[in-house]
């Protein structure tokens, strides 16, 4: 079995799948208010509905490009990839799921870690990829986040993690659960080193990611209307056998219950982050 498949360095070109999407349909309908937008206008507004302010899904590459100054960043640890350690097979094999996800998303796993600048300040920025097996956290996400934290400590650079995740990756069994402890151990060191860490929660952030790094920032902020919780709404409905109240587990609900420092509009996010880092970093 080949453990080290040789391949060219990862370049950040738009993958063929994204190119195809661009040509399909020039209009996007806001799922909240029904307003139809020119796709280009919507993209210029960071995928926020100009009519009602609803935050639509935002492709990872666009989010990354927006996070860093001039859209310039350099990814690291892209070569750490998942392996089917348990020989897991449900309706298809985990090995196939990994291969398909890599093919369809153009990413190697559910998180991208990068270095770049934000407001002129060098930072480490990680963005989760919801399209990659539900943004699930297995050994690769655990390892990459841990390495990103260690890099932040070594280089004394602030860390920003943008979360989007359905939770831990079941196909790696208890290995996935162990990633929570590993990441938290690294975060304890980051905390001791007094390096700033801002956690940005986006729609949706649930399960093991909420129960570890997403809730452990020096500041935890979320985009408006994001679903954030430990248990998913369906699990809760099944447990208590009643309908959940409207707005339950949305950003504004968490803010009202004291679980977030702020809900920040995507269009103001950069300014918030730059100002926060000016406050925290030296």
């Amino acid at each position: 079995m080949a453990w080290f498949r040789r391949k060219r360095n990862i370049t950040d070109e738009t993958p063929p799948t994204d190119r195809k999407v661009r040509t399909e349909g020039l209009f996007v309908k806001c799922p909240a208010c029904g307003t139809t937008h020119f796709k280009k206008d919507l993209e210029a507004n960071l995928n926020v509905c100009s009519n009602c302010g609803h935050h639509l899904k935002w492709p990872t590459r666009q989010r990354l490009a927006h996070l860093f100054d001039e859209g310039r960043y350099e990814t690291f640890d892209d070569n750490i990839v998942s392996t089917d350690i348990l020989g897991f097979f449900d309706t298809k094999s985990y090995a196939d799921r990994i291969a398909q996800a890599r093919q369809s998303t153009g990413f190697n796993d559910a998180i991208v870690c990068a270095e770049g600048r934000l407001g002129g300040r060098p930072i480490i920025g990680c963005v989760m990829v919801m399209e990659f097996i539900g943004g699930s956290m297995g050994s690769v996400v655990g390892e990459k986040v841990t390495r990103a934290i260690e890099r932040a400590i070594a280089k004394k650079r602030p860390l920003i993690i943008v979360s989007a995740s359905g939770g831990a990756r079941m196909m790696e069994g208890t290995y996935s659960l162990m990633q929570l402890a590993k990441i938290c151990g690294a975060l304890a060191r980051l905390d001791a080193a007094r390096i700033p860490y801002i956690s940005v929660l986006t729609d949706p952030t649930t399960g093991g990611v909420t129960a570890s790094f997403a809730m452990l920032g020096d500041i935890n902020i979320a985009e408006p209307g994001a679903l954030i919780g430990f248990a998913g709404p369906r699990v809760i409905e099944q447990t208590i056998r009643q309908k959940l109240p409207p707005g339950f587990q949305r950003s504004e609900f968490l803010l009202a219950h004291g679980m977030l420092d702020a809900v920040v509009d995507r269009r103001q996010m950069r300014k918030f982050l730059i100002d926060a880092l000016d406050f925290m970093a030296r």
Partner: protein
Amino acid sequence: MEKATQIKLLEAQLAQLASAPHTPAQDEEIMRLQAQVRRLQQAILGEANDTPEMTPMDRVKLARHPDRPYALDFIYALFTDFHELHGDRRFADDPAIVCGFARFEGEPVFIVGQQKANYKQRKMEDRKYRNFGMPKPEGYRKAIRLMQMAAKFRRPIISFIDTPGAYPGIEAEERGQGEAIARNIIEMMRLASPTIGVIIGEGGSGGALAVGACDRMLMLENTIYSVISPEGCASILWRDASKADKAAAAMKITPEPLRAAGIIDAIIPEPGEGAHTDHKAAAEAVRPYLVKYLTELSTLSPEKLIEQRYTRYCRLGAFVIEEPQSLSQ
């Protein structure tokens, strides 16, 4: 040579290589050895799940057996002078987690336990009172508050883990179940005392890890440690909760594969047909393991403990590095 021995040898080689400054050639050697270790681990994992006499789902059923000894049965059998301490100082006292100080073999220790029913009383109302062992945020916050107190006085902490999972309910979410679990894990990772976790029934995901990010992890023979319940996994991946037996087997949640993976350190044999047949004997079976690991950990300074704890969890993961960075053109 036995696979486990081979792994040990390879790991020793790796440790030597890793301590020196790396050249690209050494990096390649490290990668090669790591791959070898992984292949061996995978082989062991494959073998370990083939227990002909008992399926993983049978173990799940035993782990959930209504007559199984619960945390307080272990606590009263193994310790003397147990005094329970209550409350998170913020909201409430959660009966699903019991905490307190006691003596073990004459020495002061601190105890945390997830409790599924009242002590020696297991009617529906006794189970409901303990919320079937599903803690709410206040339970986790009580546990970490008191573990930090114990660590302040450098007393070892023993955690008995037995939960289907953290409580998935409206009020738990309102009070920040995710944050409570996350906070517990990060704080446990930097406790200055030795910590030993014993899974005595169900090790239900983050709800278990929130009191189980320990220096050493032990499992009784008929227990499970899982990232999601077999039913939950089956209903998501097979869209059919009745496929739980398949999920239980696929996720490798029984003690043998978890020990092979290094996730737990030891498996504690159970008496007779299982712990539910003899509570006293089941508790006594735990005693020598506590003695062994408490002795082992008692020699370490707080700094060393915390460092080794971090290293322990850093090792746990299965991934492939496709092309060593140092070799890229």
